Each structure stands twice: as C-alpha cells, then as structure tokens.
C-alpha cells in the first residue's frame, strides 16, 4: 500500500455529499418511476461504498495493533502509511461504523414493531376487499405491505373525501403495494443511516415513491385534477385535525404535499433531456464510489496476504 491509499479512500466518503444536489434535480426532471429507481440504486451504491471504506480503514488500523496482527497471523508488518496517521483514522472509522450500526439497528427494531402493530391492527379490522377501516378521529391512510396487501384508512379520512376522491386515494395506495414501494423506502432508510449526506436523498426517494403512486392513481381514475384535489383535501383535513404537530413543523420550505399537488395540476410535460444526464451523472458518481471502495479493499486484502507471508509484494 502506498500513500495514495488515503486520498483515494476519500472518494467514496465524499461522493455522497454531491448526491442530495443531484437527487433533487433527478426528482424534478425525470418521470417518477425512473427517478425512484435511479435514486434508490444510487443511494444503495453510495452507502455500500461508504461502509466498505470505513471497514477497510478500520481493518488496516486494527492490523497495526500487535494483538490483532497476531490473530490475523501477520508475519510481516502491514505496509501502510505511518501508524500515527492510520490509527486515529481507523478509530474514527470504527466509531462511525458503530454509530451507524446502532442507529440502523434501532431503526430496524422500531420499524418492525410498527409494521407488526399495523398488521395485527389490520388483521382485527373487518376487511372489505383489500380495504381495512380503522375508527379514528384522525384522518390517515397508508399502504400496508404483506400477504395479502392491504390499504388502511381511518373513518375520519373516508369522511373528508367524496366517493371519487376516495377512489383516487385507494388507487394511490394500491399503486404503492403493486409497485413494491416499501422495498424502496426500506433501502432509502438503510442508506440514510450509512452516511448523513444521504438523508436528503432518503427524502427524495420518499417523494419519488409518492409521485409514482400519484401518477398511477391519476391514470387509474383518469383525472389528474381529481387526484390533486384528493391529496390536497386529505392533507388539509389531517392538518386541521392535528394542530399539535403544526406547531413544531418548520415553515421554511415548501413540503412534499404541495409539490405533489402542483405536479398533478401542471400540464403533463415531456421529461426533460437534462433529466437523463443528471440521472446518469448520479449513477456514475455512485458506481465510481463503490468501485474505488472495492479497489481499496482488494488492495488491502493483497497487502494482508503479503504480510501473512502468503504472497510476494
């Protein structure tokens, strides 16, 4: 290993930082389903690059410690840049990896518990077709993945919409289930825990999934305006019913709901060609990041073999 090793390792760690900028543009300029795929695959690759790099750094540092070197059956010292540089970096990398793992574990536990609660709740409600109605004064609706797929809607939500708007709502939730959107959302969650810069990308993936379901619903009911109205009325009903939340929500930016409504109300425009270029750029960043990380890992692996006396340097 040479001194070029460390700067190269910065590539997978810094690449995710440009992702939020590109992600927003991909979302604005690409068709929702294409955006959903590009963003999710890119986020996963960038996350993999980050984890692999942190792992490589940690491993390199550990093998500097005599005890670990003995476990690794190293007969020669590992050829790395000075231990003064590698050891603190390795400690930092190990710390970050631990934090990410803890956060991810906590999220998995919470999400699994949430899903289990939602499923057992849905199992108890009387079902009509795939619809499960929950009696509640709070307007709410969500798609519940599993076998069979369900859509869960509260009585308050059903009462805030008219019959055609309800059809748009059902079509939206069915599109989530049919499109397997929960896999994308879970992937986004995973990526967001691997690198803080991927958190805005998670939000972009969520919005892309909503947009994809909105467009599917608009096609299904054959009326974009009706779909937009259903979303807007549902959001306003939820908002009015829950003033406690609005007090803590920051007011600085336009949130996802108005963007979805505006997108449905604006005339359908052909996807911009710049969209595909930006999507390609994001994909290239992600592939570059994961390739660099993999190359470094392979390089370290070879160095370890040399140090174990199994290969010649």
């Amino acid at each position, binding site marked *: 290993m040479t001194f070029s090793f460390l700067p190269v390792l910065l590539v997978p760690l810094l690449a995710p930082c440009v992702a939020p900028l590109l992600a927003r543009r991909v979302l604005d300029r690409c068709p929702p389903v294409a955006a959903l795929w590009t963003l999710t695959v890119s986020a996963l690759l960038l996350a993999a690059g980050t984890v692999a790099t942190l792992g490589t750094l940690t491993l390199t540092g550990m093998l500097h410690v005599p005890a670990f070197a003995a476990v690794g059956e190293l007969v020669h010292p590992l050829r790395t840049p000075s231990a003064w540089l590698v050891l603190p970096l390795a400690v930092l990398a190990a710390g970050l990896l631990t934090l990410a793992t803890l956060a991810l574990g906590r999220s998995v536990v919470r999400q699994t518990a949430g899903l289990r609660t939602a499923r057992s709740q849905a199992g108890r409600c009387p079902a009509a077709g795939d619809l499960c109605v929950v009696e509640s004064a709070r307007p*709410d609706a969500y798609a519940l993945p599993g076998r069979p797929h369900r859509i869960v809607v509260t009585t308050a939500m059903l009462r805030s919409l008219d019959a055609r708007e309800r059809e748009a709502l059902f079509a939206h939730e069915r599109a989530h289930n049919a499109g397997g959107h*929960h896999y994308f959302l879970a992937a986004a969650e995973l990526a967001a825990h691997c690198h803080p810069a991927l958190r805005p990308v998670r939000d972009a993936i969520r919005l892309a999934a909503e947009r994809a379901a909105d467009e599917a619903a608009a096609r299904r009911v054959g009326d974009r305006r009706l779909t937009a109205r259903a979303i807007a009325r549902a959001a306003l009903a939820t908002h009015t019913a829950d003033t406690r939340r609005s007090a803590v929500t920051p007011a600085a930016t336009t949130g996802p709901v108005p963007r979805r409504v505006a997108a449905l109300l604006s005339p359908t425009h052909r996807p911009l060609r710049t969209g595909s270029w930006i999507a390609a750029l994001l994909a290239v960043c992600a592939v570059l990041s994961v390739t660099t990380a993999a190359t470094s890992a392979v390089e370290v692996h070879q160095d370890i073999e040399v140090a174990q006396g199994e290969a010649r340097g």
Partner: protein
Amino acid sequence: MTDAKDQRRPAGELEAAVMAALWAAGAPLTPAQVQAELASGLARTTVTTILSRLHEKGTVERERQGRGYAYRPLQDPHGLTALRMHSELDRGDDRESVLARFVAQLSPDDEEVLRRLLQEGQ
C-alpha cells in the same frame, strides 16, 4: 367512470368502494343510496350483490327498511384498542419510512400553498 370500466374491476375493489361509502355516510344506507353515493354507474343489482356478500362475511349489519334492507358497517367492538394502537403508531416519525402514507405533515406555508392550488384547480 363508466359501467364497462366497473365491470372489469376486481370484486375486492368494488367491495372496498362500497364499504368506504358506508363508513363515510355514518348512517345506514340502502343499495339505492349506495349506488347514488358512489356515482360510478354501478348497476343496482351489483351493489345489492356486494352488500349481501359483505353481510355474509359479517363486515356489515343490516336492518329492514321498507321492502329491502339498509346496511351499515359493523362497529369495531375493540374500537378503543384500535385507537390506542393508532396513537402508538403515531409515535415518532420513523413510521413514515416503511408505511407509505397518503399525505405527509404540512407546514403552515404548505397549508397556504395548498389552499391556493385547490382554488386554481377548481
């Protein structure tokens, strides 16, 4: 929505639409009232069939009204449990990430933008 389109819809979707109409009404509905409320060109006989199927499954209850029946959703005997679980689900914003919700929270600005968009969209 045309009648032809509704004929092609899976039975489950029609059941869901009818059930939603019953819940939204909050009072017992006759098949004719359900048909009018759905405004989807469904045949009265189709609505009646769906309602009796839901009744057989035990998801709706019915009472005599005139020469036919009026239907209403069977109230959840565990309504309180459902409410408590609902609030449990509400805890923390993590829930959003696996359960794709129809609408996210609004900021006060969002509310204004939405009201304007709704007006423009009329």
